[in-house]
């Protein structure tokens, strides 16, 4: 008979989980390439969403002109990767200000949407990744300096805690959006039915008895999938079963609802789920042999 008490077992398990979480969260070191791809992608998505609206000539000369200039300077530096961590952080703060200042304080409703928030918070979190170590002007300058000094090339690696925070953000997003849908009005298909009428057919649903069933089934699929994405995407063993359904869900959102840059942002952030070194190896395979070896 075991002398170990159940309380001791629980405490040991909790401690093991906590240690594992710490190791995963703040002590993982890995390739910086997925972080760099996220940085470049987020910069381009920020331009897609906000660049036209921030053109300096659209505003009277004043503080908003200065804001526009800062927006263009820092998003450009973020994309090319010059002082990438700092410029990404400033670009993230500027993007978050679309949500908090222009959206919530100045009541500009389009900037209060979830796509603005996820773009801003993801950019701030990206500043905490080692995104400067790959695909950046910083990297190019560091490689040139190392070669000049005859030193080995700097590693494309760093602490991945920023990527882990992106994973936590995506998990919370899926979890809470699923929680919001757990009520009869959604699960019986009513909300999807109303959305369908609002966007597609107007005020009178066609006389087809199966409509309510179709919307109820679709509602259950959405809720189950969102919970599954929250709980299973972060884990390597279960991730492979849910990446494609997750991408399909976001493509459906993109094609059927006015989600603006939301889908493409989340799809880009899926890079944070994958093992950074594996992404690095895949990119090596994708890029093939170096040009000097080919020409030699």
């Amino acid at each position: 008979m075991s002398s170990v008490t159940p309380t001791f077992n629980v405490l040991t398990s909790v401690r093991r989980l906590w240690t594992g979480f710490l190791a995963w969260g703040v002590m993982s070191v890995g390739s910086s390439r997925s972080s760099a791809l996220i940085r470049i992608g987020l910069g381009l998505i920020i331009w897609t969403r906000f660049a036209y609206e921030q053109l300096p000539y659209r505003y009277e000369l004043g503080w908003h002109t200065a804001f526009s200039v800062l927006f263009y300077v820092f998003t450009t530096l973020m994309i090319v990767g010059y002082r990438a961590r700092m410029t990404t952080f400033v670009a993230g703060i500027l993007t978050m200000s679309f949500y908090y200042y222009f959206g919530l304080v100045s009541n500009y409703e389009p900037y209060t949407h979830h796509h603005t928030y996820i773009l801003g918070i993801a950019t701030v979190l990206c500043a905490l990744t080692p995104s400067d170590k790959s695909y950046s002007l910083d990297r190019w300058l560091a490689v040139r300096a190392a070669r000049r000094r005859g030193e080995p090339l700097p590693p494309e690696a760093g602490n991945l805690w920023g990527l882990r925070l992106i994973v936590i953000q995506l998990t919370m997003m899926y979890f809470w959006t699923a929680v919001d849908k757990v009520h009869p009005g959604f699960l019986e298909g009513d909300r999807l039915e109303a959305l369908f009428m609002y966007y597609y057919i107007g005020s009178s649903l066609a006389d087809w008895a199966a409509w309510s069933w179709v919307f109820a089934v679709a509602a259950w699929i959405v809720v189950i999938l969102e919970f599954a994405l929250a709980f299973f995407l972060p884990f390597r063993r279960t991730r492979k079963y849910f990446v494609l359904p997750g991408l399909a869900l976001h493509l459906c959102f993109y094609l059927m609802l006015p989600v603006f840059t939301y889908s493409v942002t989340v799809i880009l952030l899926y890079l944070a789920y994958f093992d950074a070194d594996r992404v690095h190896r895949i990119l090596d395979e994708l890029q093939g042999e170096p040009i000097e070896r080919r020409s030699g």
Partner: protein
Amino acid sequence: MFFALAVFMLAGPAYRQVLDGDNRVFRNWVMFSAIGVGLVDARFTHLTEDGSEVILNHHELLAGQYRKVRRSNIWLIRNRNGGAVDVARRLCAVLDPITSIRIESRVATRRGWVTDVDGEIVNCGAP
């Protein structure tokens, strides 16, 4: 820093969605929960003099009277503008004034459909 940000992301939505907090520094994740709220799903039945009932297509009969919402021909009835009763009165204007229209409608809320008008009859000849 890691834990502060993690707690912000973990607890923020709980504060908004479970505790009903209204501090908007914390983000709730309630996407598309307000879209379509107030939309009316209505059926208008034309009660003719000979006792027969015909379901009316208000989209066709009132084409040009509704504000066109998008490029496609879809028309939205909102409960804030008189809703289905107002639409029935407009239908009367294009029908035989001796007849009547029965309205059955429901309105979309955040928690699902709620009955709006349950069989009210609008007499087209009435002032």
